[in-house]
């Protein structure tokens, strides 16, 4: 089986677990994004067909919620928390520094597709503000120097000692 077939089989299982119920659309989109990494148009059409929902409805729901991604994310993802506590503690400076250093815009990826920069509204680690998340690693009380160094290491495949 190709990777795609395996993914489709996993998606089918999810659909079945939810009894192909319309009301489970959000749960199914969550699972689909987990399986495929992002939600492209063919996938949305597939889900609409499986749940017997109008495609425009599925598209409307997908684009309403900021958690769902319709573009392929970069290999590594740096997420900056723009919550109040982090804003107050100057996360904006860090975001600007990352944009400059790696030549990308918030919400976008580098030209080589290796790094994406996302912004999120509060990950809830406010006592450690400002906070950024590099792949699965949460960096608390972050500074721009520290974050840029960590990103460099990840991009160059250097193992992080503190991990």
């Amino acid at each position, binding site marked *: 089986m190709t990777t795609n077939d395996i993914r489709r089989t996993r998606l089918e299982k999810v659909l079945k677990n939810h009894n192909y119920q319309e009301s489970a659309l959000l749960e199914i989109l969550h699972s689909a994004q987990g399986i495929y990494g992002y939600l492209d148009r063919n996938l949305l059409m597939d889900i609409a067909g499986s749940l017997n929902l109008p495609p425009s409805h599925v598209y409307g729901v997908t684009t309403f919620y900021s958690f769902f991604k319709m573009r392929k994310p970069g290999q590594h993802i740096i997420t900056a928390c723009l919550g*109040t506590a982090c804003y107050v503690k100057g996360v904006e400076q860090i975001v600007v520094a990352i944009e400059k250093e790696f030549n990308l815009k918030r919400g976008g990826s580098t030209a080589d597709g290796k790094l994406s920069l996302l912004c999120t509204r509060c990950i809830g680690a*406010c006592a450690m503000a400002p906070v950024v998340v590099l792949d699965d690693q949460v960096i608390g009380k972050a500074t721009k120097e520290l974050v840029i160094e960590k990103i460099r290491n990840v991009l160059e495949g250097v193992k992080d000692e503190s991990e």
Partner: protein
Amino acid sequence: MNLNDIQRVAEEENEFQRAYKYRINVCCSSGCVPFGAFKVLKAFEDAVKEFGVENICKVARTGCVGTCSVGPAVLVDPGEYLYQSVTPENVREIVQSHIVSGVPVKKYLYVNESYFRKQQRLVLRNAGKIDPTRIQDYISTGGYFALAKCLLIMTPQGVIQEIVSSGLRGRGGAGFPVGQKWSLVARASNTPKYIVANLDEGDPGVFANRTLAEADPHAIIEGMIIAGYAIGAQKGYVYIRSEYPLAIEALQKAIAQAKEINLLGDNILGTQHKFDLELRFGAGAFVAGEETAILMSVEGRRAQPRPRPPYPANQGLWNNPTLIQNVESLANAPFIILNGGTWFKSFGLPNCTGTKCFSLTGEINNPGLIEVPMGITLREIIYDIGGGIPNGKKFKAVLVGGPSGGCLPESVLEAQIDYDSLKSVGAIMGSGGIVVLNEDSCMVDTARYFTDFCIEESCGKCTPCRAGLARVKEIFDKITTGEGELNNIDILEEASEYIINASLCGLGQTAPNPILTTLRYFREEYLEHIVNKKCKAGVCFRHENGGGK
């Protein structure tokens, strides 16, 4: 499982725990995990074995201790010794000295008595004390006894009466009396009825509900089953932010455990009562916390609110009567039932009973998760619990109630924490966020930041919120880049009044609060920006987008 079984589990568990002389509670909640809490947990488990004290010392994974800024936090009982910023490297030393020799390691202890002195932990009574992944831990503290009391000796009406008499008000923001809400849904004639527990804590800077779910998920579940019995619902949903993996895991585990011993499902505790629970995941939409929007989202639709009436109590999920309640309100129910409404009334204020959980963050010495009695003043929270402002900076303002709360100055710090007092100074209780700002923050920029947040999170359905906030933001952009004019202030005030009164849902109706409070308390800063083109805090006039530090 019936009442006797529950009593047996509790007794066995208590006996099991009494066998240990020491208990090491390692906080493994979202505040501490990113900083290595699981490694510390493992290190403690290894160390007690290494020193051969595993028979007298129990190492437990627990929820939030409350001191989120000095994680990973570890609490050693007896004596509630709180160790801060524990690393796997200093674990051996702690075990050797504290457990083996009985001498606490002073240099690692968190010494800040005032942080806890003015707090009152009711909802979070188990947080940091029990292992959220073990239902026995919860039962041993009296968990599910309230449910047994309801099902075995109380009528649904009696349960509602008890909640009414407690004076408990909704903790999700608006403060609607919980008992009254329950009786509205109970009286609705259509069936089936539903319960939706709101854990869509979308406010930036707020993590009180998440902490509760991570630390004590069974309290939420028990509260929901009790509410189900009271209003006649057999199905409940917990709507939770997908960004909360640890809370999701805790709830999933807890639901499975409760099902296993028949506290969820059919014939609960051998009675006729049925109740089932499912998780529903949010997907990054702040507005989905609004009570009609959450219904749309649970139904798998765009989270656009709809006008009320009809109220969800009559027409909610799939047009059936639905109780929508914040998880903190639900977690209050079990101990109100166990101890009675009159007992609950002894906490807080006469017209605003109980406690409230807040996440305390920003420019403050002791950020963290706190639970305080209603009626405590903002000053006590900031200076006594929070320890004041770090680095010798001056206090400037405190934001109470999330992005649509109010920015309050020094002069109103005597305001009490209760729904009406906060409203009178221009803030709201919201879902429990307190962010402290120092003199380096510009209040015009702060109002702009919150307006920007509300614009991004607006669902776009109604004109005032969608178009109104966007125009307001443009005015802020002008003021913060030096293009402001004096009549801008009038337009801001006029538009804010319109947005508050004409918007469809709570998001729009409260979004201008930061604008109105900054205009009320920090008007001179606006004038300074407009007339002198100056920003004292040095925040504005620096970027072309008008803001950011």
